[in-house]
């Protein structure tokens, strides 16, 4: 008996000792390592798909952080955002700093995306699929690598270039910022690689390849290349001795110190290549389908995947940004508010300039009497799809792009909520109007204007939102890139005129006057970009690369007097009113500050952007 018990005892102890190691092998049944992904065609494709997801939703102009980043539109003289927590306020009041720049996530997220691209490029050759498909995927990946570098480059200028992915044990502390010239060249080279690999897909044919819409194409690559080479040829980067102090820790200048006119040539050639290739496709061209230039201009952005688009994102039925752009009476936030300065920039319908400048107070306009522009009184006339009888004379006889881009008091926009979305709504931004300050909470129309361009007019707030696109690069920009680069290289030649006029004529405006000097032409092109490319994330970078920002971004912005007005024709509302001072300190604000914690990890290798607190010594 005793023995049996002893035996039982041993048995129990023995059983517990068995398979102890296996007990802890509680790993997921199908662990996929990154290498496993590339052994499967579908997974590899999904990996690439995910890389696309990091391209920003720039439509979110009011919100900072994460993949929702666009502090640029509200952060320049185009717009004021009424939402107090938008990062653009930090940029505008000069209060941004290396310790809060992480709110934008531009730097870390660009590199998260770049890591994924590099991983994809390193491993895609293992994937069991056709060479043809691999080549397409690689082409897209090269484009995306260029694109994500560009997203960091446009904010930070000289940035570290990463053409491979890093393992935790690699030496990464010593990776430096590369000189801006090298960054631009790297981006341009990747674009050319993408172009070569995607040559058989210059654009996505809607009829036969619907499922590929939104993928990078060779035309997208050429468009991005044109933009980056234009940037690097510009005064900010090209022999900019104001940036002579922007040195790497080893003394290498990060901004070229000797002006090189050939960079303009390279930029002009890049734009020309893009335009020529577009023509060769027989499909990609300026959008010109509607006889009414107002509708036509709107539809560049509202007709999805049209022939002018080079690179865009399908943002689905995401409607938050639409709500930011729609008025209070629709139950919306009404916070994307173009400045009075932006409104003033639109020409008259005959191409004349309504406002020549401002008096010393920065607010009172110097009106060009010859243009017929008036700020007093109200009109008896009306013009379908442009203005209604009774609106302020300020909004009469302006160029078509004004009516396609700006929602102003008295303009017809959408359908009113009061009529259950059946009757046209006339906007009332004066204080007691249904869209006015008096009826708003802390979200309100701050300038008396709302953005109209880019916004889909078919949206019914909180009820219906169509599938939307967000355009990153379109052919219209390339025309202006070409004109600018060529004018800088060889002066206002016929080609320069033709390129600018193509854009103006399409917009319903007459040709530029002939006989302009190179400088006059430069100003005309700058103006054309400001208007034609408004709210498309060009202005913020354009004024910087032109080194104009210290003038354009360093003064107050203005609005209508939203605190006043009881009716459409109450003059009290139409008083120009100070909104806020804008701060731009040179050279500090030309480049974004690198997050302090990133600098702290390796101050001996990573330099801060100029002007942003680089302590010369510790204690």
């Amino acid at each position, binding site marked *: 008996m005793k023995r049996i*018990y002893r035996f039982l005892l041993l048995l129990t102890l023995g059983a517990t000792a068995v398979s102890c190691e296996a007990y802890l092998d*509680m790993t997921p049944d199908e662990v996929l390592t990154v290498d496993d992904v590339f052994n499967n065609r579908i997974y590899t494709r999904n990996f690439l798909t995910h890389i696309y997801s990091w391209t920003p939703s720039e439509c979110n102009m009011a919100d900072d952080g994460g993949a929702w980043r666009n502090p640029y539109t509200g952060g320049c003289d185009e717009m004021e955002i009424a939402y*107090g927590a938008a990062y653009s306020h930090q940029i505008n009041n000069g209060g941004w700093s290396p310790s809060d720049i992480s709110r934008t996530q531009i730097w870390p997220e660009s590199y998260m995306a770049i890591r994924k691209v590099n991983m994809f490029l390193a491993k895609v050759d293992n994937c069991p699929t056709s060479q043809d498909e691999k080549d397409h995927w690689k082409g897209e990946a090269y484009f995306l690598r260029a694109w994500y570098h560009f997203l960091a480059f446009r904010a930070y200028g000289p940035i570290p270039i990463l053409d491979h992915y890093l393992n935790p044990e690699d030496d990464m502390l010593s990776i430096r910022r590369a000189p801006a010239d090298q960054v631009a060249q790297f981006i341009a080279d990747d674009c050319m690689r993408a172009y070569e690999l995607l040559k058989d897909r210059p654009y996505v044919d809607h009829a036969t390849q619907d499922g590929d819409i939104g993928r990078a194409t060779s035309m997208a690559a050429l468009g991005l290349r044109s933009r980056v080479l234009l940037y690097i040829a510009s005064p900010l980067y090209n022999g900019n001795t104001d940036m002579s102090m922007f040195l790497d820790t080893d003394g290498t200048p990060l901004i070229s110190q000797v002006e090189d006119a050939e960079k303009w040539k390279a930029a002009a050639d890049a734009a020309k290549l893009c335009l020529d290739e577009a023509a060769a496709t027989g499909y990609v061209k300026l959008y010109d389908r509607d006889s009414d230039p107002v509708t036509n201009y709107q539809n560049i952005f509202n007709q999805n995947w049209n022939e002018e688009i080079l690179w865009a994102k399908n943002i689905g039925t995401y409607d938050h940004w639409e709500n930011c752009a729609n008025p209070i009476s629709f139950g919306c936030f009404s916070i994307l508010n173009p400045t009075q300065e932006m409104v003033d920039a639109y020409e008259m319908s005959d191409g004349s300039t309504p406002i020549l400048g401002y008096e010393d107070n920065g607010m009172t306009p110097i009106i060009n009497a010859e243009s017929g522009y008036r700020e007093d009184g109200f009109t008896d006339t009306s013009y379908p799809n442009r203005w209604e009888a009774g609106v302020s004379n300020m909004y009469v006889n302006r160029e078509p792009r004004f009516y396609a881009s700006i929602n102003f008091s008295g303009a017809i926009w959408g359908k009113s909520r009061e009529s259950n979305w059946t009757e046209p709504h006339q906007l009332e931004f004066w204080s007691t109007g249904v869209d006015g300050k008096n009826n708003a909470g802390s979200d309100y129309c701050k300038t008396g204007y709302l953005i109209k361009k880019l916004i889909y007019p078919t949206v019914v707030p909180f009820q219906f939102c169509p599938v939307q696109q967000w355009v990153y690069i379109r052919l219209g920009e390339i025309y202006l890139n070409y004109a600018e680069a060529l004018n800088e290289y060889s002066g206002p030649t016929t080609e320069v005129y033709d390129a600018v006029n193509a854009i103006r004529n399409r917009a319903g405006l007459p040709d530029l006057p002939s006989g302009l000097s190179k400088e006059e032409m430069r100003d005309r092109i700058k103006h054309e970009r400001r208007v034609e490319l408004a709210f498309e994330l060009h202005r913020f970078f354009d004024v910087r690369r032109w080194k104009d920002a210290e003038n354009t971004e360093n003064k107050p912005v203005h609005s209508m007097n939203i605190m006043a007005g009881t009716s459409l024709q109450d003059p009290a509302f139409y008083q120009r009113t100070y909104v806020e001072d804008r701060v731009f300190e040179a050279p500090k604000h030309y480049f974004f500050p690198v997050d302090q914690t990133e600098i702290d990890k390796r101050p001996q290798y990573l330099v801060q952007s100029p002007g942003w*607190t680089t302590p010369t010594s510790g*204690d």
Partner: protein
Amino acid sequence: MRHVLWGGVALPWTEEQLQKFKDGSDPYLYPSVDWTDAVLKKNSFQTMNNLSVSGGNDIVRYYVNVGFSSQSGLFKEDPSFGFKTNSQSQRYNFRSNVDINLSKNFTVSLGLGEIVEDRNYPGTPANDIFGAIKKYSPISSPIRNPDGSFGAGNTSYEWNNPYVLVTNSGYARQFRSTTQGTVGARWDLGTLITPGLSLSGRFSYDHYYYNEVTRNKQPETKKYLGSDPDTGEDRYTVIRDETAMGYKIAGNTSNRAYYYEFQINYNRTFGKHTVGVMGLFNRRDYKDLTAGNTTANLPYRRQGWAGRLQYNYAQRYLIEFNFGYTGSENFAPGLRYGFFPAISGGWVISNENFWGDNFINHLKIRGSYGLAGNDNVGGTRFFYMSNTDRNANGYIFGSGSTQQPGMAEAQMGSPNATWEVSRKTDVGIDLEMFEGVIRMQADYFYEYRDGILLQRAQIPDIMGAPWGETPYANLGIVENQGFDGMIEIKKTHSNGLFWSLRGNVTYAVNKIIEDDTAEALWSYQNSRGTKIGQPLGYIALGLFQSQEEIDKSPKQELGAYTVGDVKYKDVNNDGVINAYDKVYLKYPRTPEIMYGFGGTIAYKGFDLTLNFVGAGHTYTFFDGDGMWPFRLDYPGYNVRREYFDNRFIPNASPEENAEAVYPVAHNGTSTNNYQTSTLYYKDASYIKLKTAEFGYNFPEEICSKIKIEALRLFINGNNLLCFDKLKFIDPESDYGTGGYPTQRALTFGLQVTF
């Protein structure tokens, strides 16, 4: 003058309109609503009932307990809504333990317990309600408009006023159930093999289930615009349309755990030698049955062996050796097991022959040194493995709105990670005097934690680690030391008066020795040498009183600032205030000193017990909503009284503003003023009268007459008094009323024992 708020922008109201807000003559257009009062009750009720029975004989012993408690919350209800919306909980529990002697040497035991709870809540979660009270301005809207509809505003957080959220947004019903079962057996091998030897085993099973059904409702809310000057009819803007009551399973989670252990014990005394041996094997397997992904759904497993050897000589010299050999699934094969031995010894001086009759009747000196392991880092599992995210964000290709699936690198594996080890040393003394009247205990401890699992902090962002999550490594070192003490004095007098006093204190200070952070440029910013959780912030010097003061002060690069804004100290004297001027502030949030004291006095059936608790060396930040007015543009967000009474007022007299503590109000965000700084950093030490109970035990004669064993009447209270330096919030809460407040409870009770 006072109505000029900032930058020359005037308030949008005339004097006449402001007067209407003040006198309440037009409460619809010019409302002034105390939202706290509108939605919260002053009192609520709770009941608790407990019944337990125990008994048995030589073969079977049993214990049965049944309980019921119910508690209702603080929210007001709207009788016209027709549904219960106030928070309420009803809790039932029962438990039964049975021990059976199968034979003289073999006992089996079975324990079963169950807790069932039903709860009700308003359709809006409590945090959102208290958040709304903080944000929703008193002048935004009335509770109800003249036509009876609910008042609202245009901004999203004003779509529903707090009263709507509390009383008319529907309700949520929660159900929770916890089941516990234990079965065990003990086999005494004393007669079979050798005296003092026994074998035991235990298996337990826990199951938890949680279910929540929400029935949300959006009533119509409107903004009242006044009456039309022509027609005299009231005008409204509809803010939210009414929706039918929804139905949603908002929560459905469940988990279970198995645990089993085998133990062998040997305890025997040979003359003056006492020997104890214990061996243990255990396993735990916890599974989240409704986890959202396959990794989290896998059982969490742990297993280990432990052993103990004890020896003492004549209860004078004690020595003990312990070990644990534990395996963790979190590490790669080969690195899974950790061996954690410990040794301790004691000398009971009072048992020595030379001690004799002494007023100190017990005196013991103790010491120990041992290792302990940790394999757990905040929910991350299997961090030795690299893996991919199969449901990574996708992207829309094509002209529709369907996303294509995405896949991405997820966790970067840390194949070399293993146990972090802490080495603990403890020296202590136990003392008892006057035959138990005074008891004392004191300990000094020192702990050195090494190989702490940290995410690599020096990896720069340009590596692009997925979501910034860098891999783990055993890199951290922290030391922790302190003192622990307890004293108790109790005495019963011959006349039946009993009194006792108790006190305890723990004082612990830690120090980071290594945390893999970069060497700071300025040595005072090195995190090495600081305490865990010690905040890094600016030193606020007060508020700028004039433009001249701004002009002659160092430039602050923390955002735009003006007169009335926070002025910071230029710590490194480089002429600018920037991130390099942050310093480590005194104390972290976790108190370094925790103490408690209390006492009981009893006489002739009456007794009174008081328990105080306290904390010291703890600071909190009192900032955020309510202290940062109008951060999303004026007039959004409420303002705390503390801010309002102590704020800087533009154009007020210098004398008035000299008293101001908080910066001037801005229209929108002011990063200069929102910096982590000493301005909002407040001493949160406190002493609280945590519980007090006064009771009466009826004499036995009365009890026996009504055939019960004991009868007690009592009144007790929780959170009765608080002495602190903050004054305006509970010193244990952060950032004001973040959520449901601590309730002061008074309970009247009757306890009957049969």
